[in-house]
């Protein structure tokens, strides 16, 4: 395995800083000078750094470029071509806006430590592979930055807890990338009906998410030009690079750096579940398929049965994405694209002013920027992100152990299964740590 361009010493030094967090002035107050008269006043703009500008990261970048009140000033990625292309895109966009051809432009960093030490960055948008989500978000929180991070959350339950503590300590604004809470407004509506009792007492909740993928080459391959694979791996165990290792599929379906679609896609319908019914099951049991051939080795198909503390039933399996709440007085099912209910007139219900209203904004990115400014909790905050992600983990643990997992939601521990409890943590490759 080849190392990247940084010398070992540099790398360790940066890692140390990254692990601890660096000195930085937080929040939007610091004034920054940027060129151009048609760009709105500097002090009104939230400055963004984008960490991870692959497929999803580019999509977020484009989304934030359209949002009001922010400006992207830095990107970061271990792939040279990606970071340079994104930096160029951003620079071009602002050059057009400011009318100045020679606009200085957006910086392209290889590693995120450098980016996080910049005092002129207010917030970061993290769209790295799953295993980096929490370590980078932690570093960002400790550097005083506000954070937008893609789903799923951590690759262990302990990672999630650590991030939550860090955010609570310093009050960073945190938005979880479960964008359905804003972009798909019928999801908010479904959850509002549940929360405000329109379905009566909830008896069952059923969650489905698309199945994962098997395959992928295990044959070692030469590293692409300009790619810092060691940095990409970071806290994940070292393993030979293959052509499928760091692709979109590779980031989702290799257990060393992800849980698979049980979390990667599951995060969406599980997030909707928690939004409408803010607790998680205390019992998990089920089966799942883990491929025995090929690079991808996360759970592909699964079926989990569970139970909430109040006795309501829970199922979670692979299927077209959907969250179904079944109450004594009817049911409602929301997926990304559609909503169904029985009785049908639930769909035309109009909420009263005194009832709980959930929708903050129809744009998840704008919502984040607005909340960075107002310091209000955004649509998808850390508390529920942690809980819905727990469900993916506990389901995965139930499958991998073959046993019923009992969860204590107060102490946040697995009850009565010492071996399974060891799976709550994922030791990290040195020098990375929580």
């Amino acid at each position, binding site marked *: 395995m080849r190392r990247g361009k940084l010398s070992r010493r540099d790398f360790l030094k940066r890692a*140390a800083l990254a692990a601890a967090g660096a000195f930085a002035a937080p*929040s939007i107050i610091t004034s920054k000078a940027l060129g151009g008269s048609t760009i709105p006043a500097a002090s009104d703009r939230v400055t963004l750094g984008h960490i991870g500008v692959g497929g999803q990261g580019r999509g977020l970048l484009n989304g934030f470029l359209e949002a009001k009140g922010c400006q992207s000033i830095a990107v970061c990625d271990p792939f040279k071509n990606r970071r340079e292309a994104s930096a160029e895109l951003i620079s071009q966009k602002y050059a057009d806006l400011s009318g100045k051809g020679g606009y200085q432009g957006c910086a392209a960093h290889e590693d995120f430590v450098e980016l996080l030490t910049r005092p002129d960055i207010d917030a970061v948008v993290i769209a790295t592979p799953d295993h980096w989500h929490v370590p980078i978000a932690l570093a960002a929180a400790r550097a005083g930055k506000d954070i937008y991070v893609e789903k799923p959350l951590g690759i262990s339950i302990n990672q999630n807890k650590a991030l939550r503590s860090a955010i609570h300590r310093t009050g960073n604004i945190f938005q979880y990338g479960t964008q359905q809470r804003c972009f798909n407004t019928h999801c908010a509506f479904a959850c509002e009906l549940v929360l405000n009792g329109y379905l009566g007492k909830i008896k069952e909740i059923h969650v489905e998410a698309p199945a994962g993928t098997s395959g992928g080459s295990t*044959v070692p391959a030469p590293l692409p030009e300009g790619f810092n694979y060691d940095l990409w791996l970071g806290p994940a165990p070292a393993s030979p690079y293959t052509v499928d290792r760091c692709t979109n599929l590779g980031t989702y379906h290799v257990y060393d750096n992800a849980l698979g679609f049980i979390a990667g896609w599951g995060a969406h319908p599980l997030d909707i579940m928690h939004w409408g019914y803010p607790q998680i099951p205390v019992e998990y049991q089920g089966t799942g398929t883990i491929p025995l051939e090929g690079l991808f080795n996360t759970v592909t198909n699964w079926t989990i049965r569970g139970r909430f503390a109040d006795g309501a039933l829970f199922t979670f399996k692979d299927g077209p994405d959907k969250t179904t709440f079944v109450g004594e007085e009817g049911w409602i099912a929301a997926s990304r694209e559609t909503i169904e209910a029985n009785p049908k007139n639930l769909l035309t219900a109009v909420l009263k002013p005194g009832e709980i209203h959930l929708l903050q904004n129809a744009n998840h990115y704008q919502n984040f920027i607005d909340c960075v400014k107002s310091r209000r909790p955004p649509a998808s905050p850390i508390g529920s992100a942690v809980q819905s992600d727990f469900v993916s983990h506990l389901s995965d643990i139930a499958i*991998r152990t*073959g046993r019923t997992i009992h969860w204590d939601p107060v102490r946040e521990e697995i009850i009565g299964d010492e071996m399974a409890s060891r799976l709550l943590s994922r*030791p990290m490759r*040195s020098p990375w740590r929580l």
Partner: protein
Amino acid sequence: MRDNKTILTIVLAILGGFLFLEPVADADAESRLRVLILAGKNNHAWQETTPALKRIYEASGRFVVDVLNDPSTCSAQMLKKYDVIAGNWTNFPSRDREWGREAEKSLLEFVRSGKGFVLVHAAGACFPSWPEYQELIGAAWGSNSGHGDYHAFNVTAAEEGHPITQVLGNFIITDELWHRMDVKPAAHILAKAYSDQARGGTGQWEPIAFSSKFGRGRSFYLVLGHDAQAMMNPNWKMLLLRGTEWAATGRAAIEIPFDILEILRAAAGYTRTENRERLAAIEQLAQSSSRNPSLRRQLAKSMTDMLESGAAVDFKKFLCEQLSVIGTSAEVSRLAQLLGDKELGFHARLALERLPGNDTLKALRDATNGLSGRLLIGVVNTLGEKRDKQSVKILRRYLRDDQDTEVKSAALQALGKIGGDEVADDLMAQEAGISADLRPVLAEALMNCAEGFESAGKTGEAARIYRKLRDAAQPLHLRAAALFGSVRCEAGEATRLLLDALGSGDQALQSAVVRIVGTPQGKSFAQGAASRMTTLSESLQSQLLYALADLGDAKTLPEINKALSSSSRPVKLAAIYAIGRLGDSSSLEQLIGQIDGADVAELAALRKSLAGLRGPDLDERLITMMAKSAAPSVRKEVIIALAARGVRQSVPALLKTAEDDTGELRIEALKALGTLADGALAPALVRMAGDERYGGERPYIERALAGMGRRDKTPDRVIDVLLAALPDSQPATRESLLRVLGRFGGEKSFHVVRAYLEDADAEIRNAAVRVLSDWPDRSPLDDLLAAAGSSKETVTKVLALQGVANLTGKAVDMPADDRAGIIEQALGIADLPEPKKLLLSVVGRLFSLKALRIATSCLDQTEIVDEAGMAAADISRAIGKDYPKEAQEALAKALERVRSPGVADKIRSVLSDLGLKR
């Protein structure tokens, strides 16, 4: 030179792999239980399962096995030497008793005398007419029994503490799961499996293992075990072995069922480019040890032995991962020896990080001596993660100035996680001389210490650290967090601290103060903060207002009211929001006063707040305000508020406004009536509908009537009023009434509306067609077809055909062919291209041959050829796999005829997806 005893030990170890720790005497061969497997016939693969069973029994070292392929030869004499009989024989589906009297008798006597009988799977599906056999086996495949797919399912040991299942936890097995077996009341259910309906099961937990008593003997029935593959599951093996042992002796002592080393060795060459089946088997074994300490111990030991062997590196990494879950203190020292290993260092540490216990901590501590660089940092990280108090002395060493920065950084962070008095002192001492790049790490570590103290109730110690961290030299965000800490730990100082921070001009600290105001700790400070609101920046003012809203302390209201007059829009909006949250009756004037001159955002905020404002007399005051001669802009908002607040008692006043006022106010009042009123008001509104004065607001009257109907339990009351008013109504009114009837649907309305299809007035006829076209169900279809066919007017015809398209399109519960038939009729009637195109778009959603033929036949009409081609493509895509020939013909014709390149492309792509030629 080896003696005989040693040879025997080796031989038996190879054969049995049992946990022998001393030399074996010849007598041991006799202490093994003798099993006779009955085989020779089965509707399952007995030729494979019988040897499999034999291997399982023998590998355990506890059994000696004979196989009998003809059970009819059983006799008392022949069975004497056995301890247990294992049935792998069935003649299912035959119901005959095939073994003969002698054999039957000898079997029963065998068990009754105090020995055992074991059955596997289909062995319990024979001899339904032999009552003693049925009593013996305790459960059977009966006439109601069935099974779903062969798949993976969960099993639990139902009877806690039964000897057989004692060392078994829950597990997953891939097998065939039977359901609805005939179970005798006397049979004990030992374990159950979840029978998933999605896999052909019952949705229940079905029993899969039974034990029964028979005379002085015992039987054990293991229902799982459809084939040799299923029998490879280690949990299945354990059940079989312990069940057999118990059946033979009444006790189950087997804890390690097979040669663990053999299984590990078989995978020792594993590299990551290979199939992982052998690894999965080991993993399964590891998980099966969750309630079996002996197995777990042996397995962990054997795995660790393999770590020291010449096995492949990738396999060793896998073993470390397994050991991280099943390892105990027995493995610690050997794992620790690998901490410095170039290839396995991380994986050894991974295992140790997950292994609890003091031995692990000591081993990790000891290992720091021999490590450096990244490997050392890893161990330091792990000691920190494990919060090892004993590590403090060691970690302290790494804080010296001559130490590597990265190691120092790791040590600082680890110490911070460990916390405690010693650590706090060390870290505080470091403060003065710390280098700039390590300052944030140190601050973070101190913060962790302080929080640790706080959780332990040592607020004094925590406060000391928080005080230090409030210092100007510290990272800003930590200073803010430290301020919060100080407020919590030094309650007496809280107000002073917060005031100082608020007045400091440091926006990050001010922001922290505001954040604190929104928490329970901030309660006592809320008013103080509120009174200083104007000294803050606009952004902080609005933050503070939101925090006050969250806090909900009414005493802060006067300050919030003042903020209403701020020139800053965000502040104003925040104030409006806060008033809505914690305002009272007096706030009504405040909010109303803001209406004039409010912009769009402010109006939106005002509406929300007016809607949510709480107070005893608010509703009445709003009603009064609506009636009095207040400014129209105010009255408009009041009406909107009344509707949002659901104030039913405002309905009479709203009606008056609707009737007497004009323009916007009338419209708003009508909207509000639609939200608040019920069918009792229908007559009044129908009168309005008939009144020319309200001609301009007709749509709003209709909507209001529709709303009223929805508010009643059924819309009948409103429908009746509408129907009664219809006959004498003027044309314009009549249209309105018909449209409202169309919203409700229903049989009564339908008959009335359809009668208007024959009305003398063409406008009314068309209105009737429009209303029927949007009907909530498909009852008007026939009438619309008839109207399309008979009408001489183009407009009516087109409208009617559109209606047919619309209703047929929505009739998803109707069979596709029936829907296609209706469209076909409509297409026959249509003579203009536009309605035909609409009808074709519906055809395209009907996935049947008939629909395909209709689409194809339309290809002959040049003005709709592209739409027909599109429909053919959509239908073919859906049914092409089942009807390739028809699809091919249709698409080929379409490809010839269509003109649009886009449609042609689509047709080609469907052909290609279906694998058809052009």
